[in-house]
Each structure stands twice: as C-alpha cells, then as structure tokens.
C-alpha cells in the first residue's frame, strides 16, 4: 500500500553524521554573516529575516544531527565514507568536465565548447565508439543552434576565439 508519510531510512547513509555536523557549522556561519548585515539595530532592518532564516537552519541542523546520533553508527561514517558516497568517480569526472566546459565557453564560444562537452561525455558514458558519439554531438549542436538561436532568438555565449 502506498504511504505518503515521510520516511527516514533506519540506517545512516555513509558519512551522514559528518554531513549533518557540516550543515550545523554552515548554519552557524550563515547566522553570523546575517548578524553582520545590520546587527540588532531594529526589528525591520535588512538583517532580520536572514537572521531568522539562518536561526531556523541552525535549529533544524541540530535536529538533523541529533537524528543521526540516534541511529546506529555506520562502518563508513567518517570523511572517507562521505567522500565515497557523495563523490563516485563518474560524478567527479563528469563534474570536472562540466567545470572545464564552463571555463572554456568564454574562450571557445558556446557552440564549439558544447560540441566538445557532448562528444567527450557521450563517448565516455555511452561507449559506442567515437564516430557515433561525434555524429550525435554534431547533430545535437546543430539542433540547439537552430532551436535557440534561429527560432527562440536567444543570444548564445560568444568566445574570444570563435564568435
């Protein structure tokens, strides 16, 4: 029977306790930064809502941390568990590729950079050979250009080498 109640897993995810602790620290920092906006000068200053929101983050962060403390400790609860769970190699490499893509857009321009990203990513993830990956990448870039530049008339990011 479907159940729409909130479900919390009975066991900790790898590194979950450490992650909860990091959230609390982040919320504390956010509260401090919010306080620095206008201090306690009044009840209608620009810093009041950020302080309230970060206080909610801090309190709920502590609740989340306490929830993780009630569950049995996982074998891989430390930094190594957190890194292994959050950052599988495929995600790390793909994110790095996307970061490189974002960095090269201002140099190469949107279309060549996108073509490059598509080719490398499809080749690596699909594993059907470079020719098919190249063909799909070129076709996709062509469709994107036609759809966005020609039909929607969206300005695409230009590069210093290729405009």
């Amino acid at each position: 029977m479907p159940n729409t109640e909130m479900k919390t897993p009975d066991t900790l995810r790898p590194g979950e306790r450490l992650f909860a602790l990091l959230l609390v620290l982040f919320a504390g920092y956010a509260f401090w930064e919010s306080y620095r906006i206008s201090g306690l000068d009044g009840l209608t200053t620009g810093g009041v809502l950020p302080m309230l929101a970060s206080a909610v983050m801090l309190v709920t962060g502590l609740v989340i941390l306490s929830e993780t403390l009630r569950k049995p400790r996982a074998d891989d609860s430390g930094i190594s568990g957190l890194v292994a769970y959050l950052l599988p190699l495929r995600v790390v490499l793909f994110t790095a590729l996307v970061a490189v893509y974002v960095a090269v857009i201002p140099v190469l321009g949107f279309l060549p950079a996108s073509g490059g990203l598509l080719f490398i990513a499809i080749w690596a993830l699909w594993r059907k050979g470079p020719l098919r990956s190249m063909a799909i990448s070129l076709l996709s870039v062509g469709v994107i250009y036609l759809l966005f530049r020609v039909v929607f008339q969206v300005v695409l990011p230009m590069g210093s080498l290729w405009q």
Partner: protein
Amino acid sequence: MIETLGYFATSWLDPSLLVLTALGTFAGIYIGAIPGLSVTMAASILISFTFKWDVNEALALIGGVYVGGVYGGARTAILLNIPGAPSAIATAIDGYPLARKGLAGEAIGLSTVMSVIGGLIGVLALAVAAPLIADFAIKFTSRDYMLLGIIGILLVGTLSGESFAKGAFAGALGVMIGMVGLDPMTAETRFTYGSINLMGGIPFVVAMIGFFGVAEALAQLEHISTAPIKQKVSRIVPAWSDVRRYLVLGLKSSGLGTLIGALPGTGGDIAALLAYDHAKRSTKNPEVPFGEGAKEGLIAPETANNAAVGGAFVPMLTLGIPGDAVTAIIIGALYIHGLKPGPLLLTDTPHLFWFIVGNLTLANLFLLVFGLTGIRIFTKVVECPRAILIPLIIILSAVGAYAIQNNPVHITWALAFGVIGYVLKRYGFQVGPIILGVILGPMIDANYRRAMIGAREDIGSFLFDLISHPISFLLTSALVFMFVTQIPFVKRRIRRA
C-alpha cells in the same frame, strides 16, 4: 460573460497560441515520459527562453508542457516500469503488470482518456473556486501573506521530504539565497562579499536550473546503465464500456486529486498515491487484485494527478502561493512578466486568469489527441540512452542560465547550485523547498517588515496581531499545528491513534 468567454477562447482562436499549446503538450508528453527529464526541469529552462515573449505565449507553452508532462510519466510507467515523473509512481504498480499481460495499448488508452477527464475536472474546479477564494483573499494583510509564505515553504518541505527538519532546513536555505543582493528597502548589501554580480541578487531561474536541471543530471549518472524492458503495444483507443465502467471511480479520484493539488506543497505525486490508496480501499471486488494489473489501480492515480494540475493553480493564482514545484516556476514566469499572482490578479487582470483556464482546457484536449496517437514513434524516443540525455541537460541548463541576463557568471552559479542540490539530494533533502524559499523569501521579507512597521516595531503588538485577527489567527494556528505535530511525543500519539 461574453467578455469572459473571449478571454477563455484566446488560445483557441489565436493560431500562434494554438500551435504553442499543442507544441507544449506534445513536448510535455515526451519530457514527462523520458526518464531523466522532468517537467520542473523543462519549465525552469523554458522560462529563461520565453521571458521576452508575450506573457500569453509563454504561458501557453509552459502550461502545455505541464499538462503533457504530468500525463507523459504514465506511459513509461506502463511500458517500461520506470515512472517518467514522480506523479506516475502509483501508475506503475498496476500499469506495468497490465503491459506484461499484453494489454499495454489498452492501459495507455484508458489512462489517456481518464487523465483528460481528470484534467478537465481540475480546470473546472479552478474556474469555479479561484474567484471565490480570491474574493476572500482580498481581506488578507501583510502579516497573512508572510504567514502564508512560511506555511507554503514548510508544507512543501514536510509533505515531500524525508523529515520535517530537512524540509525546513531546505526552505530556510532557499530564503537565504533569495536574500542575496541589495536590500530593496534600505540598499544595504546582504551576502554580496563585494561582488558586483551578487549585488543584483541571484535570479531564481538560475537557482531553479541548477537545483532542478544540473542536480538531476548529476543524480542520473548513477542510473546510466539501467536498460529498460520493452513491451509490445496493441490497440490504444479504449472501449467505451471500459470508460463508462470506471467513470465513477475516475470522478471520485479527480475530486480527490483537485483537492490535494490545491493544498500548497502537495502536487500530482501525492494526489496519485492517495487516490491509489483510496481506490484500493474502496474497490470491493476488483477483477484482478491490486498490484497485479487492476484497471482501478491505473485509473485512480492517473485521473488524480491530472486533476491536481488545475488544483495547483488555485492557490498560485489566488494567494500567490504555488501548489507544487511547477506552479512555483510558473509563478516565477508571471513575476518576470511584471504580474503579481494573488487575489488582485483576478480583478486587475481577469483576461489572464481566464486565458489560463482556457489554455489548460485546450491543452487537455490536445492531450487526448496526442495521447491516443504516435505510440510507435514514442516507444523509440523514450529509449534514448541517459548517456546522451545527461550531457544535453547540462548544455540546455547552460543556455538557460545564460539567457536570462546574458551573463556568463550565471552558468557558473547554476553549476554550483547543481552540485549543492546533488549533495543535498543524496542525503534525503528535497530541492523543492529551496526553490520556494528563493521565490517566496523576498515576499516574506517585505510583508514581515510591513507588518512589523504596522505594529510600530513593537514585538508584543506584532505577536498580538497574529492571534487577534481571524485570518491571521487561522494561519498562525495552522503554522503552530504544523510544528506541534512534529514533536516526537505528539507524533507517536498521532500514529497510535
């Protein structure tokens, strides 16, 4: 009356709006159906391309995508046992067993007709209920809007997530992101760290693209090698006797779906699950047991999730509080076009309200046409490998983030939000409340300050106002109830009861 009919028929009579609605519905079916793509993702990217368009054109396209997308998820749920959208999770329970029995075409046909019936009932409810609620909502004051905003964020967080604390944390994080930039009242800088780019604030479309598009793409990397199981599709158009037989259940589920959809923070997925549950409890002697291909188990969630679309528009258009993630994005589209969703929207711009009603009706009719045709091409398209889809989502997200202000920095921000969203999702946080926080944060801020100024900056008077006025009292009570029911002792008592 004739004027209203004219507004209603705008998208029916204007060829470009007609085509955009058809295109949106058609694309929505595929977007909803292809695992890895979602309506929220598509709508958030679409906003960045359509913000320079006429508001009717933008809404026609996005509305069509919404209606088509909610339905589209059912097709892959039936054919591949992979719900294309969360609202189709319940559909797969009985839809896939039907397909395995060689009844995939019949199941798709029945779900299409019932989805359209549900969708039309939802739109009818919107047309009837919204003006009544808007008349009432005119009495709302600043403090009521502040309370509504907080309730909206918390509801999304609590109903869709793993725990209340995680939902509230995500909502508060969204509010913080929405506060970045210059304070509109005092021009004080908030979280700008000397950056000129941050002084203008973070456009919520960029946050949406990051949290819904990029984060989802990263999360999909895990399932990259999942191969779908194909099914043969036979006759699609359902038998009239079947439609007539299940009509009462369809109508009941539509009513339930509309009501659930109208509650801020719920949406089609919860509506579908509750309708499935209701059908299972209320059907005394199903031909086939539930879970093994009961048609009731297919019809109930499908009518409910489509009815929830009309329902979700009710709080969005009347109170300015989105019913679900997609209406949160549509509210953003309205803001971008200089419109302010809320009770005055219906009195100041009735043409827009009746346009939306007419357009959603039209989209449902297109759904009937597209739902009962083109199934052969469809089965080929939905088999598109994730290895191709994921890089494409990243490219589309980059164009979307850039297009909103032609600022390349926004692509970097979208990527950063995507990584944050991915990390949070891994630990059971929902990104919906974050987006609602980003959108509603500035509204809550402005209304809180107005209410506090009205109370002469006296905290006692402010708190007294929250309980001494009937509407404020009702909303404060709802908020207190939400918190009280999360206390472990109370939760245990509720469970026992």
